[in-house]
């Protein structure tokens, strides 16, 4: 089942590769329909994972184990728990939306584009399901390739610079992660992720491993100060690329912290908690202030992403149920909301071919439906109660407050700053008189575009008013994780003292 969900998109990609032979319009549309159909099917299948998911256990479910390289002890091992399931679902939901978003805006090399997108979906879902380190690492790296191409081939004018920056940043992080992975496997004697979680490592080794992972994950999150690839990547990426980048790829880093750092090297994680808090707080305040000054819509949302992900890392390192659940929920929220915000930018970019905030203004007069959708996602981004953003932010800040009041206090300033740049942007883009002649004749969202937003709108309110079903998925797994992360693994008393 898991392998099917994971590799169905790749098979779809293969199908496009075989079925579509030229670059004619009809071929392009065949490619689009195959991609949409396959991604929708993947989403439906992923819902079966949710239906069949056992809420009462923290064990990995839907396990699949096939020996791969038996001599090296490398196993094709897949499985999900309450921490990975939300991300599998999120990826499966966002991909068809992304394909819809590319429907008209991608006009050249459509076939290759669709293949790249489907491959990306496979690799991303695979990363969330992989329970063997080598499998994980291969998928983690493989994911880079289609993303690199999406930016580098279908991106804006500075796409090569942005793609290279993205590639080098993440590659730099990955190298250190590989070393950490190999060292971990060497010491633990296995590549199995569940088994490695149970092995106690001495403190010095934990520190080493944590730092190796930290470099890779912090680039992906991205945390300050290794965030500067993100605004460039977003600005140059095509709309759907931005959506998937913000929606799913940014979750990789935080997922890594959850899956590896916290349970495998808990003592080191606690030891470095102040550093994570510090960097996250800088990210929240720093990037919020920078976002206030942006002139490009996509850059503004990109910077807001860094700020929001700062909340997430604080929640994860609060080491309590509320913080971690809030962090996971906020990752999903951010995927939904910033994904939608990038889609919204894409809608007007397709019409006006600009993203400069000053070129807009008064959109509400010509695009009332668009304005309402934009307003709802703006409010979700600001964390208004009744939207999903509130539940995540609230739990994170509550969790942080229970761990460290000062951290919660500084982070909470993000509530004010976040509202400042989002409302300023909304005012400039949507309200006011029409300044730009081109806006006079702009058309409102069409049926295809509405179809992209509807599922995301439903999630905003569903998760805002009744987040129960979403939190239930993670309760047991997170409880287990918090236990693992707060237990002293090394058994050395002085380490515990250092961690405080």
């Amino acid at each position, binding site marked *: 089942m898991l392998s099917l969900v994971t590799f169905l998109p790749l098979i779809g990609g293969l199908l496009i590769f075989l079925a579509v032979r030229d670059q004619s319009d009809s071929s392009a549309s065949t490619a689009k329909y195959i991609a949409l159909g396959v991604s929708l099917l993947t989403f439906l299948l992923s819902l079966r994972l949710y239906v069949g998911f056992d809420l009462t256990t923290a064990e990995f479910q839907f396990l699949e184990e096939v020996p791969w390289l038996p001599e090296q002890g490398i196993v094709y091992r897949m499985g999900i728990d309450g921490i990975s399931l939300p991300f599998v679902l999120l990826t499966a939901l966002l991909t068809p939306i992304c394909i819809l978003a590319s429907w008209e805006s991608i006009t050249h090399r459509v076939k290759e584009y669709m293949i790249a997108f489907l491959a990306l979906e496979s690799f991303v879902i695979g990363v969330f399901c992989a329970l063997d380190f080598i499998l994980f690492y291969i998928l983690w790296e493989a994911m880079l390739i289609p993303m690199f191409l999406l930016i580098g081939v279908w991106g804006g004018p500075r796409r090569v610079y942005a793609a290279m920056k993205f590639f080098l940043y993440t590659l730099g992080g990955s190298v250190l992660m590989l070393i950490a992975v190999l060292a971990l496997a060497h010491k633990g004697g296995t590549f199995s992720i569940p088994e490695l979680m149970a092995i106690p490592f001495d403190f010095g080794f934990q520190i080493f491993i944590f730092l190796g992972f930290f470099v890779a994950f912090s680039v992906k999150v991205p945390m300050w100060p290794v965030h*500067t690839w993100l605004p460039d990547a977003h600005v140059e990426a095509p709309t759907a690329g931005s959506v998937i980048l913000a929606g799913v790829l940014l979750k990789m880093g935080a997922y890594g912290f959850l899956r590896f750092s916290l349970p495998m090297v808990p003592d080191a994680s606690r030891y470095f908690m102040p550093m994570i808090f510090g960097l996250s707080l800088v990210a929240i305040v720093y990037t919020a202030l920078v976002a206030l000054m942006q002139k490009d819509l996509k850059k503004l949302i990109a910077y807001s992403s860094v700020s929001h992900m700062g909340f997430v890392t604080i929640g994860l390192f609060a080491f309590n149920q509320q913080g971690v659940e809030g962090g996971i929920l906020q990752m999903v929220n951010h995927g939904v909301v910033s994904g939608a915000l990038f889609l919204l930018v894409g809608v007007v970019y397709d019409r006006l071919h600009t993203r400069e905030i000053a070129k807009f203004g008064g959109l509400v007069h010509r695009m009332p439906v668009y304005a309402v959708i934009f307003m709802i996602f703006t409010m979700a981004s600001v964390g208004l*109660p009744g939207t999903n953003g509130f539940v995540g932010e609230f739990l994170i800040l509550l969790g942080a407050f229970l761990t460290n009041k000062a951290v919660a206090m500084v982070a909470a300033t993000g509530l004010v700053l976040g509202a400042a740049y989002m409302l300023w942007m909304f005012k400039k883009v949507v309200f006011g008189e029409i300044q730009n002649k081109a806006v006079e004749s702009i058309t409102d969202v069409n049926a295809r575009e509405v179809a992209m937003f509807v599922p995301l709108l439903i999630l905003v309110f569903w998760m805002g008013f009744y987040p129960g079903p979403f939190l239930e998925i993670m309760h047991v797994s997170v409880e287990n994780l918090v236990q693992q992360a707060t237990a002293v693994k090394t058994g050395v008393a002085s380490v515990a003292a250092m961690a405080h």
Partner: protein
Amino acid sequence: MSSNFLILLLPLLGALIAGLFGRIIGLRLSQLATIIGVGGSLALSIMAFMSVAVGDAPTIHEPIFSWIVSGSFKVSFAILIDRLTAVMLIVVNGVAFLVHVYSVGYMEDDPHQPRFFSYLSLFTFAMLMLVTGDNFLQLFFGWEGVGLCSYLLIGFWFKKESACNAAMKAFLVNRVGDFGFALGIFAIYMIFGTLDYAEVFELAHQTGTYPAQTAFPLFGQVDTITLICMLLFMGAMGKSAQLGLHTWLPDAMEGPTPVSALIHAATMVTAGVFLVCRASPLFELSEFALAVVTLVGAFTAFFAATVGMVQNDIKRVIAYSTCSQLGYMFFGAGVSAYAASMFHLMTHAFFKALLFLGAGAVIYAMHHEQDMRKMGGLVRKIPITYALMMIGTLALTGFPYLAGYYSKDAILESAYAAHTTVGMIAWTLGIAAAFMTTFYSFRLVFMTFHGKPASEKAYDHAHEAPWVMRFPLVVLAVGAVIAGAVGAPMVGADWFQSAIQLVEGHDALEHAHHVSGLAKWAPFIMFLFGLGASYLLYVLKPDMPGRIAKSWPGVHQFLLNAWYFDRLYERLFINPAKVIGHGLWKTGDETIIDGYGVNGLANTIGRWAQAMRRLQTGYMYHYAFAMLVGVLVLVTLYAA
């Protein structure tokens, strides 16, 4: 589903129908849907009020559904109707219903009315959520919800730059307050492990079961209850426009006048007062917090009254008046006269909504002119509006036996009877503000209705408002006359039952009836002085105000610019934020991190990058292949 649940649901349904289907069903049906929604909710509220507050039925408490559950943290949506909430239900739904009706007339030329009515009903829903919650988080839900609606309605005429800016300012200033409120909620959960009112209040009174002192950043060890109260009060200051966080309220007058009446006079801005009264079991345990509430309230009452005396925009005068009256409510609560504070909240809702809607009728008559200097002599053209405005003015200024006379005096006398230093400070400032209140209120009436018309043309076209606008005014006028006498039992012993619990010795309200003659007569004397001064300056010698302003230009400018708070904040917060943001972006990100870090690194390995570019063939399988080979080589090397 119980009928109480419908109190919340009906306005929401109305809002959704008008908001989502307004274009399809048209204007009249949108109006009808929202008015029926709020009207139905009002009828049910009256029934609830009758059983809980007039009769002796027990408090209504019904859970709706579980909202957020995470670990030991559990919060539900619920309906709690005790006497405190029952009063709020009447005020909120009563004024909301009248404002809906009034808006049918006032907004008749506006092309976006379905949206307007949808927002009004959505606001009503959020406000009802706020007052009916049984826990702090539902209160916060409604709190931010009314903030959103306030934002949407202030910016309703979104073509106007000034309206958009005012809307944004309101949201952001309130967010500053909510920053404190949110931290307060965290602190409550940390100390008591629950956000449920009943549990929190009960635990709070079991001193010794929780740490009396708590460490807090920047403040060191502080009293736990004081900390919680101060954080909550920060939220209250934002929502109720108290000194320091008041700057958004005058600007909020950019919104349509019915909005000003409903949100920025009668209901939303009183949410802070409601919060303090709701959390009175906590505030009662902290003398320090009570003193702060008293002083902030008293200084706001004084400050806003001074500014109100010189404003020329008819709505801004009433806005500062609201700010000032909210100050009264707070210092009432601060001296533990919560009942008097709630009483004033109720009467104020009547006469202030009347004044705003009356001002709306004037503005309507003057074809959207708001500058009082361009009015004058309107008494002859719109006598009914004049009479109604006069009733509102008399009720506000404390004319004997009208609404304000009972409630404002109860607050002032309580402050006096508290026999504390802060109580006396509050009383003194309150009495001074009472003089100014009468002065600016009659100044408004005289400038608008008396004297010679400033503009003949506008005067000639002035006309009385239609009946849909007059009917709500008449109802409110009746309320402004009788609400004081009818509501007086509220300040009697234990009317609010367990909703308001006083600790031993906090008996200012009880002693308020026995204050000395001076304290009893002072407000009325101030009324006479204020009326006299106003009559002298604006009827007998209308050229005098100008001459006074000229002889003290500094003072006049200081008051006209509302003590320069806006300018101060701009220099202190807004400009630095822009400069820092720009610096971090250009210097931090582009020069340091990218310049020295990323690109510097990239240049040193430039040759490698060149090689990469040659490898960039554009075929995905090349990359995939290279990657896989790399990984396999590494694995093999390691395994060997």
